[in-house]
């Protein structure tokens, strides 16, 4: 089986495809040896294996391309792999599953090394398979190697690694579905970095980041100035750009700890909870398309439920518990529940009211009643994606290619949710089942209710709920298995729960996850700074899952405060945080910033959006799509529709429609020229040209212009005042500000 993997035979684009290839199918990545054995020896009239004349086995003839093979020549007859297959056939081509020893793990030695650029013939790795009985076998020649970044280090089929460019990456080694790894560190010329801004900091983040930069001999950029820090931290933490007054008073503030004071101040602002409720709405899949007739109200309810908890800084584990253990009644009696519904009904039904009390409920049953979240396997994917940061769905149909998860793991995980029903409960059904007293609700199905047990898709065996660490929770009538599941997930030592969250928050602030992509925690995708990720997660758990503490910790590090400008020796770095990585503004932040700079939300129809609370900013927009259709700017600037379980749905890339919008869209010009907008009002206020230029810079970029910028801008104004008048000249300036990359990015 490892031979087939190494030669690529059982990959998804070859015989590993579910349809096979040209009549021959192997299990994907060789995870089902018994089936593969059947297919090799029995199918195609047994021609694939010729026990009487082994070298004439179709398998060998095809693999060496002695007969035509669409996949070309995969094996050399002189190779050990070919010899080993030949020997197996000569010995009768047998397979005894009982004799197959369980592979425990794959060991790679060494675990890491400093490599030098283009050291030929490469640094050799040794790989051992360790079996359940303790037996070790050298599988260096059989393992499959791949580099996570071939620009930094390459690896050949024999496991020899060579460095290409300064930086670090991992070589992932796979053998029979298990993974090992080697960290390749490729430093710049020997020595110490010239500039080491992180030296001397006793913040644990800076210690970890600094230590690795020093090993790689990569310098860190100088700290950013106060204006940059203020704009940066406001955008990252609350999604709002600073006003001129905020900039002025922050710059003037002489206190040495003013940056951390600012973080405290921002954490207490309402926009903190609004913005993060929007982010958590993305992650938890608050997609109002699936929320029924009053979906815009329920989309708001979902968002507002999160907002209320973030505002009072509910510990993250408790917040998630209240999502995972949701029921509609939350232990209330039927009568109490119906009374609550009756009270809520007028608030829900009235289009103009936004005083619903849903956020006062303990649990978020909307997560479960969402019509696309009903199948247990979908809920299993959603929960593992949202709270464990992993893509379990690969294992729905085949063994996970980048992790150890099997189909049995996946479906056993799904089994936790099969008794969670969204239906009319029995005590509300009238005897003739015609007219229920109230609508559907979320409950745990017990004796007398209907539910379908989860079965293994291949063996059809009923699977009891099982957590990913292998512990089984027998399906019992009166015990909601979500309780032990939640206890496992939110336990301090759970390897995924805290890590997934701290990694996402880190990625949001620093522009790149320690694990990237941020929702792909897996064995084959190790973190760039494993100890830092551990330390952050530990710190988060020790502080009782305190989200504000986590923000404070990251934002208070020197690492976060490094300048975005690169210096000699760190321009190529994109994973060691030697400088702050420039990010395009999130769609919501950018639109709000345009509105703030112009002091105009648009005019006429464009400004009106019914079915959300009046006047909400984009960062507090609760829905996945507005009832009047998708907002154009949300779409082109990459706001997620919350339709797939992937952090990548929020798209931060530049695009042509974005550029056209900024350059020439009527909506931009309307806002700039609006009669009530900032520009018109200020032009009429008697302010001088120089003062106005100063003010526009502060609004748009959170800083005053440099001398050079002030001169260029003033020249432009002076030159065009004659042509179209002062108003037009300043419209150009304001438009120009919003077309600068500096305005469109956080840096």
């Amino acid at each position, binding site marked *: 089986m490892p031979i087939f993997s190494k030669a690529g035979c059982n990959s*998804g*684009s070859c015989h590993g495809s579910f349809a096979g290839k040209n009549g021959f199918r192997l299990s994907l*990545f060789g995870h089902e040896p018994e089936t593969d054995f059947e297919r090799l020896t029995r199918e195609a009239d047994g021609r694939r294996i010729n026990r009487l004349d082994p070298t004439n086995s179709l398998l060998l003839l095809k693999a060496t391309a002695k007969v035509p093979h669409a996949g070309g020549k995969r094996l050399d007859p002189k190779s050990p792999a070919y010899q080993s297959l030949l020997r197996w056939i000569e010995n009768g081509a047998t397979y005894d599953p009982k004799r197959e020893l369980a592979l425990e793990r794959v060991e790679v030695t060494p675990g890491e090394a400093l490599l030098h650029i283009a050291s030929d013939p490469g640094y050799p790795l040794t790989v051992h398979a360790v079996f359940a009985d303790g037996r070790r076998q050298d599988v260096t020649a059989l393992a*499959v190697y*791949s580099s*996570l970044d*071939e620009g930094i280090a390459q690896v050949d089929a024999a496991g020899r690694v060579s460095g290409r460019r300064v930086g670090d990456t991992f070589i*992932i080694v*796979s053998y029979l579905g298990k993974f090992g790894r080697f960290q390749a560190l490729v430093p710049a010329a020997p020595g110490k970095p010239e500039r080491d801004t992180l030296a001397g900091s006793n913040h644990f983040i800076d210690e970890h980041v600094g230590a690795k930069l020093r090993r790689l001999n990569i310098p860190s950029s100088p700290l950013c100035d106060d204006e940059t820090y203020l704009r940066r931290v406001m955008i990252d933490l609350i999604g709002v750009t600073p006003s001129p007054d905020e900039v002025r008073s922050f710059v003037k503030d002489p206190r040495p700890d003013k940056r951390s004071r600012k973080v405290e101040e921002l954490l207490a602002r309402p926009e903190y909870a609004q913005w993060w409720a929007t982010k958590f709405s993305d992650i938890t899949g608050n997609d109002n398309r699936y929320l029924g007739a009053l979906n815009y109200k329920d989309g708001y309810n979902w968002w507002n439920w999160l907002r209320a908890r973030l505002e009072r800084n509910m510990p993250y584990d408790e917040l998630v518990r209240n999502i995972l253990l949701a029921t509609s009644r939350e232990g209330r009696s039927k009568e109490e529940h119906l009374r609550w519904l009756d009270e809520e009904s007028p608030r829900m039904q009235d289009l103009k009211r936004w005083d619903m009390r849903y956020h006062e409920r303990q649990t978020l049953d909307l997560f479960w009643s969402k019509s696309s979240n009903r199948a247990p396997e*979908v809920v299993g*994917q959603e929960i593992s994606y949202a709270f464990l940061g992993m*893509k379990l*769905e*690969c294992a729905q149909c085949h063994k996970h*290619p980048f992790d150890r998860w099997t189909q049995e793991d996946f479906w056993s995980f799904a089994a936790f949710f099969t008794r969670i029903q969204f239906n009319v409960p029995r005590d509300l059904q009238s005897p003739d089942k015609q007219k229920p007293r109230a609508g559907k609700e979320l409950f745990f199905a017990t004796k007398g209710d209907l539910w379908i047990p989860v079965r293994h898709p291949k063996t059809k065996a009923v699977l009891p709920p099982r957590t990913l660490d292998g512990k089984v929770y027998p399906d019992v009538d009166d015990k909601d298995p979500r309780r032990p599941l939640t206890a496992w997930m939110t336990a301090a030592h759970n390897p995924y729960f805290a890590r997934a969250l701290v990694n996402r928050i880190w990625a949001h602030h620093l*522009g*790149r996850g320690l694990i*990237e*992509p941020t*929702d*792909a925690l897996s064995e*084959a*995708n190790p973190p760039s700074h494993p100890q830092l990720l551990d330390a952050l997660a530990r710190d988060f758990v020790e502080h009782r899952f305190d989200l504000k503490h986590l923000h404070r910790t990251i934002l208070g590090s020197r690492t976060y405060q490094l300048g975005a400008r690169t210096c000699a020796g760190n*321009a190529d770095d994109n*994973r060691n945080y030697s400088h702050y*990585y*420039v*990010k395009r503004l999130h769609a919501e932040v950018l639109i709000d910033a345009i509105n703030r700079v112009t002091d105009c939300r648009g005019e006429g129809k464009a400004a009106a959006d019914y079915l959300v609370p009046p006047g909400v900013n984009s960062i507090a927009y609760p829905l996945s799509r507005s009832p009047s259709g998708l907002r*154009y700017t949300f779409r*082109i600037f990459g706001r997620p529709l919350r339709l*797939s*379980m*992937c952090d*990548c749905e929020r*798209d*931060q*890339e*530049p*695009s*042509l*429609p974005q*550029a*056209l*919008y*900024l*350059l*020439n869209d*009527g909506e931009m*010009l309307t806002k700039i020229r609006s009669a009530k907008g900032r520009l018109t009002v200020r032009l009429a206020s008697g302010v001088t040209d120089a003062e106005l230029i100063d003010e526009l810079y502060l609004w748009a970029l959170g800083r005053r212009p440099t001398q050079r910028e002030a001169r*260029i801008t003033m020249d*432009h104004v002076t030159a065009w005042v004659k042509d*179209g008048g002062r108003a037009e000249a300043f419209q*150009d*300036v304001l438009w*120009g500000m919003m*077309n*600068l*990359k500096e305005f*469109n*990015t956080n840096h």
Partner: protein
Amino acid sequence: MSTFRGGLGRRSFLRLGALGVAGIGLADYLRLSHLHGARAGQPLRDKHAIFINLVGGPSHHDTFDPKPNAPVEIRGEFGVARTKTGTLICDLLPRLAGCADKYTLIRSVTHNLGAHSLAGQFITTGNRPLPSLQYPTYGAVVAKEKGAPQDVPPFVGIPDGGGGGYLGIASSAYGVGGDPNAKDFGVRSLSLPTGFTLNRLTRRVSLVQALEGDASGDRRPDLLDGMDRFAQQAYSIISSSRTRDAFDIHREAGQVRDGFGRHTFGQSLLLARRLIEAGIRFVSVNFPTTWDTHANNFKELRERLLPSLDQGLSALLLDLHTRGLLSSTVVFVTGEFGRTPKINKDAGRDHWPNVFTMLLAGGGLKAGQVIGKSDGEGAQPVDRPVSPEDVAATFFKLFGIDHRKEYQTPTGRPLQIVRDGTIIPELLA
């Protein structure tokens, strides 16, 4: 095993790769756009495409696969017309019957997704939808692989649609927004706002250029390079007359506009032709109203749907042919599924993915054929069942794109452009 390669840098680099030239100043762009402008109107040798989505799912019985010998509850109310090539289609499509030598029908397309959204994703991407990711639509792939001149957007959606899927928003269609049949039709962000001149735009752009300063010597993140390149492209597009003129459907002669039909669909196809002529690589057109005829199927088809389909599509094919553009422009027409053989109690037909018809024309494919066959009731394929993946593989083949080429999703998952598809050799000339 394939590798993960993370992050912003790689993705932006890949996406920008398709857009071509870096490091050219604005003046160069102006010069280049003049050169391109001079070439417009000449026959295009490079392949282009127009994808027409009959959203809602048209009845195959009452369009391209009539069953005149079936009992009336299946046959329906319409008669048949014999086409130029001897095939029978619905008699309410007389113009399309007259130009059947220009297209090929595949009457045995089959899949098993009966819901609009999922089936729609299937036929617009050529891949069976997955809950965990979104596939890119045809146009996103073709635009990425084949690119377009700098001063036109590579992929346009009329009125919108054409998502980039896992390739990201940089690959998605530029949506025109409005109704090309409307008197005041203009395209969002492209037409200069009222009272605004190119001169003024240029002066604004030069202010930005002066403020940004000269960054050519700096090593900068891909993000900033990408923003610059798109900004330059946006300026090229707006300042060159090519794209603005192509979108300005009012420049078309009244006679030609009448020929396509003075309805949204006809004018959308005319606009699509203008865009293709201007060098836009891929245009997708959504039929403006729904084909989802659960009730009053015959009335809806007779009065609302078939006349504009017949007029618009035949005019498009003939116009492309006359201009010498048909051989380089693939036209692909399909809905997400067919409709039930049996007529329901509301004189409607319901969803039926088991068998339906797709129409392909142009781009050098072998026209004038019928591929595959459905049974006497139009219920199942009886000859040569074809999957949407097979059609997708063949479609890409017409562009010289290998549908087995692997892309990587943002999470590092390797995926073929079309996961499971076999080329339909009969379709290729």
